[in-house]
């Protein structure tokens, strides 16, 4: 069953007077529970398609449907609701809130969802324990290593049980050991919670973890390969 459908999605950006076609008609269907890598060189359109799926940016034409929600008819407020309850994000630069502790960063999404403080705290601690950050609840991002910060970001992305998690080059700022550790966690969450993971990368090591690799080139799907087929 498809959880993400992209049908002939096109997007052009203006850089000054020059128009750059970022997506030239992407067709993509991803099933629930998938662990999918969007691979391709820099500027191929990986981040753009992730942003489109996450509803952070809008397509010029084409259709995107996530968990049965067709974006073309949705308001900004409805998009925000969808992101809040159904989509988790992991960014290359971690993007943790510097004034909040690890625990509070994870709690924040649940705060926006209106979950009571006690439950927030309980769930946030449990997920931080799962990603190997037990005892580091009160540390601010500046007091954590890059790998630890990205684990907090993973915990934040999955704590509210989203349907899909979008990760934009999640291991790009990490060394290979930390990168592998993070991918192990993501894979574990994928199999344990049946959360769909879609991540962009151009690293071979990351692609090895994916069960499906979609190669993007010049804003189009160049190859779509499911491992073992």
């Amino acid at each position, binding site marked *: 069953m498809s959880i993400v459908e992209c049908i002939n999605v096109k997007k052009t950006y203006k850089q000054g007077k020059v128009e750059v076609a970022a997506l030239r008609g992407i067709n993509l269907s991803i099933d629930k529970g998938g662990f999918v890598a969007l691979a391709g060189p820099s500027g191929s359109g990986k981040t753009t398609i992730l942003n489109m799926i996450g509803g952070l940016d809008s397509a010029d034409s084409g259709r995107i449907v996530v968990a049965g929600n067709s974006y073309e008819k949705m308001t900004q407020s409805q998009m*925000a609701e969808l*992101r809040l309850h159904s989509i988790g994000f992991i960014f290359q630069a971690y993007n943790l809130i510097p004034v909040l502790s690890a625990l509070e960063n994870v709690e924040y999404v649940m705060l926006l969802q209106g979950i009571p403080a006690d439950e927030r705290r309980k769930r946030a601690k449990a997920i931080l324990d799962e990603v190997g950050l037990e005892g580091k609840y009160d540390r601010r991002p500046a007091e954590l290593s890059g790998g630890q910060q990205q684990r907090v970001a993973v915990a934040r992305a999955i704590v509210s049980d989203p349907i899909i998690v979008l990760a934009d080059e999640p291991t790009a700022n990490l060394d290979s050991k930390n990168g592998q550790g993070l991918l192990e966690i993501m894979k574990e969450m994928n199999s344990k919670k049946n959360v769909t993971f879609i991540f962009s990368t151009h690293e071979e090591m990351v692609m090895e973890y994916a069960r499906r690799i979609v190669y993007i080139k010049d804003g189009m799907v160049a190859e779509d390969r499911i491992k073992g087929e």
Partner: protein
Amino acid sequence: MYLQIAWRNIWRNPRRTTVIMIAVIIGVWNMIFLGALMRGIVVAMVNNGISTLTGDIQVHQKGFRNDPVIENSIKNPEILETILNNTLPSDAKWASRVRVSAIANNARHSSGITLAGIDPLREADISFIGEAVVQGSYLKADDKNGIMVGQALVDKFETKLGYKLILMSQDTSREIASRAFRISGIFKAELESTEKKFVFVNMPVLQQMLKLQNGISEVSIILPDHQDAHHVKNTLNADLPSNLEAATWRELLPMLDAYLKIYDGFILIWYLVVFIAMGFGIVNTTLMAVFERMREFGLLKSLGMKPGRIFAGILTETLILLLIGMAIGNILAFLCVYALSGSGIDLSSFAAGAEFAGMSRVIFPVISIWDLSAANLVVFVLGLLVSTYPAIKAARFTPVEALCHT
């Protein structure tokens, strides 16, 4: 938790926050403390005006205010006295006076003055003169030759207690009437001009000198609550015979009334000017904070935060900043007012200039609820208003725009 986050966000850049908070503190302190000094000047001017023989209300023969000559005196004060006893609040005080322009002479000097014939007992309750005598004694009801003279006039005439003073004025038959008095008391007033302008004698003596019989120039009334003057005046006017009229101090001292109206408008304009300087600081600081945290707003939006929540978050941060600044500014202003409440600010060295404007020699700050509310409301409402611009800006960025911000 939102409040906690707002609090932490404020202190991300402690130096910048401290600077803008100091600006708010100085602004609020400035508005309240300097406002209290200005209000003190105005209150002293009003009190001087009222206690220097004006009172809250005066009753005159119609035409006296335009032409204060002896012919425009109240001929039958008994009717007026009955009306006053029946109409005025029980704790109101009043006194009759004869007041004429006169010339005072001694062997060396002469000067134009206002000669007031008073009922010493009643007058002591309603005007400054009751507590103003610093040498000699206050007029006694049976003293036919005594006169009370201001210190400044005594100095000018190079005379002293017990010496004679000749007074000349025009009587009811338009002849020059003159009489010698002996200085029995020397008074000091808040304004030097009052000391030079007024001399006081017993009313029956002056009535006799001016052939006025029992006629009087005016009745001056002091009310327990000065705010009631307009209402009491209207009640009085309804009861008075058609040849008499009552007027409040605002009508009797139109310059002072105009000054008060100008002051109320001026203080608001002044508050706005102070705020505009402060407002630029608030906008600048908030905008800088917004642009520094642009990527974070992108993150919050991607997590599902709605624009309204981002807007509210920025306003909460400004609100905390304003409330702390206002609280400290208010406390500082109150401390300054408290410190000056005993001794005031002595403007004796500028007395000539200050007197020209009717100001007292010593200014005591006065905090009025209106000034206090206006200052705090201006800072609070406009402070939040100006920070809506950066807050709207932060709320309007799309997540991608914000996340790509460097």
